[in-house]
């Protein structure tokens, strides 16, 4: 098990290095940091001096090394638009996105497990067909469209939910984190974005759980469980469930990546002041420091989450736990 964890962590570090390399290459080739910092009205000679000072004339790998050194310290340069260090901007915006993702994940887990299991156990029932039918429709509607339609229905027409922003937030964790969970207004603002963000992932998970569980139900060991005279409840909710969980966890980890991409779309529609919205603005303004910082942050997030998911999988799957290999 220990060997397994160590190997996963090493792989994580390698992936991070590759991501950082890509990020740095982007930063190096796109945009002009000097222009971002001081604008066009500065004299050419002063700009040249600045370039020298910033080390922009050094060879590629020297610059890369410096980049890495700074990155590890959390320094990604200055966002020329916000006039603040890029990392600071991200840390300010991160809570908004993380809360959105967290709330959506909870919703997805709470709904997909019972619905998916039900559809697997009673595939021909009317409810199952309905759920599967809605799943296909759900998957066919792009996330931003769901968001727009939700706003159109609930905010513009029915006026019962707000249409943009996070609402009132309360600072916690020594002021580092502005949360929307603790105010009624914040929670109200959370509802539509969370529904929108979950709307594509939920059907996916329902179908996944249903498919996996149906496959498990066809196995010999489930048949043997019936032959042993075990009760249906035990067979479904203990045996089949645990076996279904394994592949679902693996896929679940990967879906997080897709969720982060969807936050960009959702935050844009709801003017949600999170990292996704910030990213889009950074693109429009060619704010490369911010872009690269976002890439690195998201990269770290993925790698960490995927590694944790892999490790959890390792704990649950006895084949991995005992022998240390997959």
């Amino acid at each position, binding site marked *: 098990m220990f060997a397994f964890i160590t190997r996963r962590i090493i792989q994580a570090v390698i992936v991070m290095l590759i991501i950082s390399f890509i990020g740095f290459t982007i930063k190096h080739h796109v945009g002009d940091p000097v222009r971002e910092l001081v604008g066009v009205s500065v004299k050419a000679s002063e700009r040249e001096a600045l370039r020298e000072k910033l080390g922009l004339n050094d060879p590629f790998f020297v610059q890369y090394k410096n980049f890495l050194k700074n990155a590890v310290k959390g320094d990604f340069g200055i966002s020329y638009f916000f006039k603040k260090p890029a990392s600071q901007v991200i840390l300010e915006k991160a809570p908004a996105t993380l809360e959105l993702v967290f709330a959506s994940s909870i919703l997805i887990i709470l709904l997909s497990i019972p619905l998916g299991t039900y559809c697997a156990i009673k595939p021909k029932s009317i409810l199952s067909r309905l759920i599967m039918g809605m799943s296909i429709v759900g998957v066919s509607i792009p996330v931003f469209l769901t968001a727009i339609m939700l706003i159109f229905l609930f905010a513009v027409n029915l006026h019962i939910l707000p249409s943009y922003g996070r609402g009132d937030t309360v600072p916690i964790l020594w002021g580092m984190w502005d949360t929307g969970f603790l105010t009624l207004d914040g929670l109200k603002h959370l509802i539509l974005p969370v529904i929108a963000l979950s709307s594509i992932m939920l059907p996916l998970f329902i179908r996944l759980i249903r498919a996996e569980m149906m496959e498990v139900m*066809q*196995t*010999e*060991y*489930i*048949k*043997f*469980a*019936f*032959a*042993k*005279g*075990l*009760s249906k409840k*035990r067979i479904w909710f203990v*045996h089949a469930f*645990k*076996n279904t969980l*394994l592949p679902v966890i693996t896929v679940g980890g990967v879906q997080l990546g897709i969720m982060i991409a969807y936050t960009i779309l959702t935050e844009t529609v709801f003017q949600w002041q999170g990292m996704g919205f910030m990213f889009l603005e950074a693109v429009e303004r060619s704010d490369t420091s911010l872009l690269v910082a976002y890439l690195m942050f998201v990269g770290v997030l993925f790698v960490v989450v995927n590694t944790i998911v892999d490790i959890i999988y390792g704990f*649950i*799957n*006895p*084949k991995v736990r*005992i022998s240390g290999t997959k």
Partner: protein
Amino acid sequence: MMEHLLEVNNLEVKFKLRTGGLTAIDKVGFTLDKGERLGIVGESGAGKSVTGFSIINLISKPGYISDGEIIFEGKDLTRVSEDVLRHIRGNRISMIFQDPMMTLNPVFTIGEQMAETILAHKNISRKDALEISVEKLRQVHIPSPETRLNQYPHEFSGGMRQRIVIAIALLLDPAIIIADEPTTALDVTIQAEIMELLLELCEKNETGLILITHDLGVVSQVTEKIAVMYAGRIVEIGSTENIVANPLHPYTRGLIKALPGSRGTGEKLYQIPGSMPNLTEMPKGCAFHPRCELAEGECFTTVPELMQRGNFRRLAACHKV
């Protein structure tokens, strides 16, 4: 009239397919007494496994029992409620499947899989259930059984896994064990061991055994009665001794002839010409006639009934015998 432990009469199993209905087994009947060992022999697709599964109604959809009765301990298992059936499975009638790696759930320990079987039928403490499990593991000759309880299926060899499966089958001291090709998936060297173990335990506990296999050689050494199946029907049934010494049905004769060793060393192995028909394309009349050297007249038009032939308690389905 002595009451049998298990009596199967006129059993018929159909499969409902998109393209129509299919009869998998037809007019299958046999009896089993306490401690008796019956072998059901035939090639793949003859319907032996379907017969085995249907006794405890484990046939997967779209198969279903369409006719017949299965009388066990005073009840007709084809008409009894699912609840009653559940309490018979694993408890009064156990089953052993072919491949022990697929039979045991890979994510649960052996101990859990054994204890849950007992706890599903008896209201005792988990500790007691585990103790019984240890005892049964000992009976199947698994060394240091107490420590083995916490291990997972993949940590055992193929032969050991099948022993565990046998132990699970014996947990509640059933009256009958149905073994569906219990050694086919194992190494040849282990096969004999497992068969011997099964035999030993059945004899000791007076457990009835229904051994389903394609291996006539094994059956001739382990069982007291044999039922030979072909294309979904029993074509011959009788005591093992009689059938092996003097087979009546041409198919059975072919099987005995095909056993290595029956022709002496250096001789070419015998093979029954042709192959068993697909259940969707059954020939008219006797299903075996395309491969039978005795076939003529009636054989092409009428399906032969399983009837008493000769003096001894023997039944065969053939017009020519």
